[in-house]
């Protein structure tokens, strides 16, 4: 099976044969905010929740290369940013390594739920140990495999509605979604949104901020995995109704609440000494 492509990038986010279950759910985790509450809080913050475009500038934008590894790169980006946001050092994590753990040995894509499991259970090796083209387990070094466990996410959870996902973003978490890439996707409108693609979803991206348009629509701020030259310095906005309301029916969107300490990193001492 060969993956469809867009501008040389294979679209490797697969629709699961069965909708994934067995994950902690947003509604089990915290009270979901209402649309009015979310809009009020965004207004209070000057229309943008976090200013992550400034925090996570050009150097943080990924390039998945000519491989169907989008899900690996969005997962590694979420893990990488979550570590940083809780005070850890910035360690670039390899989307290729994450993908190698999901693709079953062929470059035929993966599912969002695969990424959640890899992030939570195994961890992801640093980019310095796994290159972008090392997408198969057989090409991953023993050192890289051993390093994965140091960079695991902690307590991811699934979010199935706009308000669940938006609440998580407003609480500071980074999330993963599927979007449907089609012709015109790299042309952004005045709100920074690509043309609509309300198919079942073929591309995985992460979302790290939430904004409010002047008309009161929630904008999900998302860095793509296609270098800084794509979109608005590598980013775009998505709207739920235009880009996500169909794909969420097929793919398990999720957010990451925390991450483990790297035991080899600079960590606080034990309390009491």
């Amino acid at each position, binding site marked *: 099976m060969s993956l469809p492509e867009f501008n040389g990038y294979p679209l490797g986010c697969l629709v699961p044969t069965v909708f994934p279950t067995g994950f902690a759910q947003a509604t089990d985790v915290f009270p979901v905010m209402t649309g009015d509450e979310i809009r009020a809080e965004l207004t209070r913050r000057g229309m943008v929740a976090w200013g992550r475009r400034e925090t996570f500038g050009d150097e943080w934008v990924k390039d998945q290369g000519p491989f169907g590894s989008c899900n690996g790169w969005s997962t590694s980006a979420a893990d990488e940013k979550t570590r940083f*946001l809780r005070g850890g050092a910035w360690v670039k994590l390899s989307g290729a390594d994450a993908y190698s753990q999901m693709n079953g040995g062929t470059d035929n894509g993966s599912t969002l739920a695969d990424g959640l499991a890899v992030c939570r259970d195994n961890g992801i090796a640093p980019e310095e140990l796994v290159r972008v083209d090392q997408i198969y387990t057989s090409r991953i070094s023993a050192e890289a495999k051993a390093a994965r466990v140091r960079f695991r996410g902690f307590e991811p959870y699934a979010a199935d509605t706009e308000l669940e996902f938006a609440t998580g973003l407003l*609480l500071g978490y980074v999330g993963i979604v599927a979007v449907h890439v089609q012709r015109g996707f790299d042309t952004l409108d005045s709100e920074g949104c690509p043309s609509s693609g309300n198919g079942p979803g073929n591309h995985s991206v992460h979302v790290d901020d939430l904004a409010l348009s002047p008309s009161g629509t929630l904008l999900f701020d998302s860095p793509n995995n296609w270098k800084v030259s794509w979109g608005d310095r590598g980013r775009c906005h998505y709207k739920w109704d235009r880009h996500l309301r169909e794909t969420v029916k097929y793919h398990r969107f999720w957010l990451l609440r*925390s991450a483990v300490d790297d035991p080899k990193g600079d960590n606080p001492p034990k309390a009491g000494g």
Partner: protein
Amino acid sequence: MRGHSVILLGGLMLGVVTAAPAESPSAVRLPGVPVLPQPMPSPDAVVTLSENLNYVIDSDVECVVLGSPKGRLKITFEKGPLDVRGEFPDGQGVERRTYKGPFLYFVEPAADGACELLVIPKGGGEKDVIRRSLLCKLGPRPPPGPKPDPPTPLKSVAWVVVVEETGVRSVETVRVLGDVAYWKRLEASGVKWRFYDKDSADALSKGYVRAAGGVYPSVVLLDALGKNPATGGEPVGVKLPATTAGVDALVKGGP
């Protein structure tokens, strides 16, 4: 429309608390004036508002809170009830206060100079407006452009550890935790930081959950050896302050 009698919050010394003429308890409670032995301060006395002070309007009703002239005050809304630890304009030293109202407004100086604080209960008219005179003092400011100086920490504070239950993280909590610019400034001052979910293996095995003592989100200050920077003994967690200014106060003054 009911009239508001303002019962001044504070009055730590007997005889200093004053009440406005009306008899009924107020739904909107403002800090009192600093404690002075003589003469008896009046509600109209000017309150000096510096950056280290927590000036909190504790209200049972939603209010519009303004400063005049514009730009002299920064007003931040927080949903109560909240515990706040720090210094207060009508207090003495660092203390902890519990604000019970559902509508809390934190007033901070944004620029030096005199100003008037106006508190208008929602739906109220001119006669319901509460006015206070404030003198904002920011102290020495860096020239425009450079970031504010990071706090000068207690010499031995090496780490600020926050223990939380991420599953019940609130919007109010994340206004502090999510201020990455603040935490990076703190780091630049030599104080490192880390957030933990209370269920994580690290938080449990390293004793941070024990130090938090069931209070979440909790701030646990550590020296380089993991000791309490203020006492040299066991670290003790305190409730995460409602503002980053509150965290600064902890780092400067210790738990």
